[in-house]
């Protein structure tokens, strides 16, 4: 207020940002820490980077990766189908169907995946023979359980049933998030219950279903590494097979981690585009999306991970 106020014009005023000393110091410390970390990793012999390079595209690693992807896709599809059925049962007017669905979710979501996996692997102890017989007709078929239940099939069944417990809850929440007025409007147009669910409710539920389902798919992809305990030849198992022989444990774990991270990144980008698709009715003109935003959302993906 030294100057006379009438000399000062609004257009001439300059903005002075506050000094952010704390932010500068923290940034410097973080950079220093990162430099130390990179130096340590680069110079530590145990990481053995040339070995990492040697195994990154090794045929048995790639075969393991293929199996991991096959497991993830198969289990996710089955879990979504079973989960949808269980979710619809939970929302049905029948008390018995509701209770069945609740019990399903309680058990298969509640019991640890690893325990369920080992349980199904040992199914032959409870049920040595799988057979179907009808009174008056006789036995239709009969098979030895251990012949049918290959490790791969065991993994698919156990993890699908487990994952379906989560998917059922996600899908149920999605369905209940669609306002009742949508169902009413559709029924006054003469649409049947099934058609309303398929054409009106589920498409609108998708915007609530896709984000948590993306997280589930990522969690599941990593959780498939549990199948190593029943000797399914997945990504981790094939690495274990190699380092059991060569003792190059750390480099091979780096190879495995690299592939898991690569797949998670691709899945996150796919999830972004899926979300953009189901949110398109929100737009006020203009497409939105874009690859840059997809990448950013891929690396910023940290919400609600379990495991």
């Amino acid at each position: 207020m030294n100057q006379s106020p009438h000399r000062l014009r609004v257009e001439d005023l300059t903005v002075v940002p506050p000094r952010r000393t704390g932010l500068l110091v923290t940034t410097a410390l973080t950079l220093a820490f990162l430099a130390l970390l990179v130096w340590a990793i680069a110079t530590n012999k145990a990481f053995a980077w040339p070995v990492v390079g040697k195994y990154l595209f090794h045929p048995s690693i790639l075969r393991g990766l293929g199996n991991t992807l096959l497991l993830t896709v198969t289990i996710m599809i089955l879990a979504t189908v079973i989960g949808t059925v269980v979710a619809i049962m939970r929302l049905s007017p029948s008390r018995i169907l509701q209770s069945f669905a609740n019990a399903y979710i309680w058990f298969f979501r509640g019991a640890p995946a690893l325990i369920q996996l080992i349980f199904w692997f040992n199914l032959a102890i409870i049920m040595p023979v799988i057979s179907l017989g009808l009174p008056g007709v006789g036995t239709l078929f009969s098979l030895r359980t251990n012949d049918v239940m290959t490790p791969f099939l065991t993994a698919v069944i156990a993890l699908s049933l487990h994952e379906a417990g989560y998917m059922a809850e996600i899908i149920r929440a999605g369905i209940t998030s669609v306002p009742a007025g949508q169902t009413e409007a559709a029924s006054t147009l003469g649409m049947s219950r099934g058609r309303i669910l398929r054409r009106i409710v589920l498409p609108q539920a998708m915007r609530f279903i896709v984000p948590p389902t993306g997280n589930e798919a990522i969690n599941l992809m990593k959780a498939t590494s549990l199948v190593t305990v029943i000797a399914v030849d997945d990504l981790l198992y094939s690495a274990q097979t190699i380092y059991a022989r060569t003792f190059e444990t750390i480099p091979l774990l780096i190879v495995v981690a690299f592939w898991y991270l690569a797949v998670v990144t691709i899945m996150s980008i796919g999830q972004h585009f899926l979300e953009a698709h189901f949110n398109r009715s929100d737009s006020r003109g203009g497409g939105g999306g874009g690859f840059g935003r997809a990448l950013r959302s891929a690396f910023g993906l940290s919400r609600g991970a379990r495991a």
Partner: protein
Amino acid sequence: MSDLEQDFHVPENMMVYARGVRKSFGRIEVLKGVDLQVPTGSVACIIGPSGSGKSTFLRCINHLEDISGGLLLVEDKFVGYDLIDGRLHVVRPAELCRRRADIGMVFQNFNLFGHMTALENLMEAPMQVRGLPRAEARDRAMALLERVGLAHKADAWPRQLSGGQQQRVAIARALAMDPKLLLFDEPTSALDPELVGEVLAVMRDLAQSGITMIVVTHEIGFAREVGDQLIFMDGGVVEEAGNPRDMLRDPKSERTRAFLSHVL
């Protein structure tokens, strides 16, 4: 049909016939014996204070609510039931859908399908329920959007439309099924005052086309102008019904008089 006339004395050419219609939600009785007749091709406007049961009654007509007692007929058929050998059989879901397809309904909150454009909203039921080919459904939908003055908004999402535009699309969507009867549940109550006019204009145009309409509304002016019948509901019964102009000029019932003095 002749049985019906004999046993229940239903007059001819009635689109909707209600006698002693009751409806309870748990212990609360919302409809306490509604008597009402809507001749085919006429426009009936239902007014009344909130909680008088007018919306509930409207929802009973297309079986969104099941009635608890009384007689409710649409085109000489029991709503939700079939009379066979003196017994009422609950209709199968497929038959219920068939009957609902002939009764259009317009809601207070529009209820447009949020994941479909205006045009797709109009094409959905004709294609899914009536099995119309896509091209034909599209042409008809465009013609209807033209009729409500929204052809230029065919590809807009519901969220991009104003309330008045959404309600006009919703009316066009109901019309896309060629209904014999149109039910309006407070169609202008959720609209900003300046948007009410455009919706009423569309409804006025419809009333002149000769379609049977039952309109639950607070728009007394609309009722006076286009209504063939004005029905005042209060406390779950029809308190008074008659010619709108006569009734508004000289209500017979004290309660009608009191209600009208508040809203006019």
